[in-house]
């Protein structure tokens, strides 16, 4: 591609992360448009597009997914790809892909009714964790220590509005050492990692977990790379837990990850490395990402 690539960033709420990414594009003198997902409209019978690359940073899984589907249908290179977003936005779909690729995950069961979920929880054993398949920031994740607690949580889930809340994703409670690990992956290459420490069993930094640097070499880096490949690669954050014996397993993969608390402890200019990759995609035709080229 010889001319300047036409780039757009799909946004909604501008978090610290989006501000850093947009400022990085501006610092490099890269021309780009901002597409506000609350205002954008598509005519499906007029499949025109004016962008080579669209970088998705919307906080909305649904808006991201359908906007990227439309754009990819028009030949736009999207970061991340719609298939990757669809996979990562759904913990169950992610889990199936990880297991299929041989990536270790906590013991997990799925059921579609409260009664079946209670039986599945008995099989897994208590304490266990009930998670929504769609959602983020640690919302609606419940640790249940016994059947009484499980019945209460499942009753609540049953009356929530969306059908996804009736897909019961049930997981063993991993007795982690007060921390979990997030590995930032670019393409399928681990960039850096943080420990997220908290006195609470939910260690998400959105819930107050504190970040510190974590070495990303060895098994950790390899496992994160495998997880990224399993979901299709791109700009991703792989969340892992260790058990008390140090065995690693992957919990989830995030497709529009937050990184504000990870730049200082890792010493890595994460937004700059992400923009490097986005701009590199402008030079690659659809479907020949770094990840796919390596497989």
């Amino acid at each position, binding site marked *: 591609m010889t001319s300047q690539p036409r780039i757009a960033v799909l*946004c909604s*709420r*501008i978090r610290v992360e*989006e501000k850093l990414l947009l400022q990085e594009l501006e610092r490099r003198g890269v021309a780009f448009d901002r597409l506000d997902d609350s205002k954008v409209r598509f005519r499906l019978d007029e499949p025109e597009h004016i962008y080579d690359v669209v970088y998705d940073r919307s*906080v*909305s899984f649904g808006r991201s997914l359908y906007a990227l589907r439309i754009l990819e249908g028009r030949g736009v290179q999207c970061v991340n790809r719609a298939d990757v977003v669809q996979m990562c936005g759904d913990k169950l779909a992610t889990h199936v892909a990880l297991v299929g690729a041989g990536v270790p995950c906590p013991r997990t069961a799925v059921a579609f009714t409260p009664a079946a979920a209670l039986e599945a929880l008995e099989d897994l054993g208590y304490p266990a964790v009930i998670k929504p398949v769609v959602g983020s920031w640690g919302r609606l994740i419940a640790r249940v220590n016994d059947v009484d607690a499980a019945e209460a949580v499942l009753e609540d889930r049953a009356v929530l509005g969306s059908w996804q809340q009736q897909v019961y994703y049930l997981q063993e409670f991993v007795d982690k050492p007060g921390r979990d690990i997030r590995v930032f992956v670019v393409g399928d290459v681990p960039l850096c990692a943080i420990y997220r420490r908290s006195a609470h069993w939910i260690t998400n930094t959105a819930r107050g977990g504190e970040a510190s640097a974590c070495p990303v070499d060895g098994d950790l880096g390899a496992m994160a790379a495998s997880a990224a490949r399993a979901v299709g690669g791109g700009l991703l*954050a792989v969340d892992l837990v260790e058990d008390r014996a140090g065995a690693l397993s992957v919990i989830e993969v*995030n497709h529009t*990850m937050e990184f504000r608390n990870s730049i200082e402890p890792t010493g890595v200019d994460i937004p700059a490395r992400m923009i490097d990759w986005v701009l590199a995609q402008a030079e690659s035709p659809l479907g020949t990402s770094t990840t796919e080229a390596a497989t």
Partner: protein
Amino acid sequence: MIECPECAGGITTPSDVMTGEIVPCAHCGAELEVTETTPLALAAAPEVQEDWGE
């Protein structure tokens, strides 16, 4: 300095503020979204939706 649309308290925004950014009101705790930068305009931020996240 701009007035909070919820409580009328004074709000100072950073010089590089962008549309779409969320600004908390220190007086009433409201989350406000920057809807315009020239001139600066704020509105109550949308509620977090079930599918929002990272």
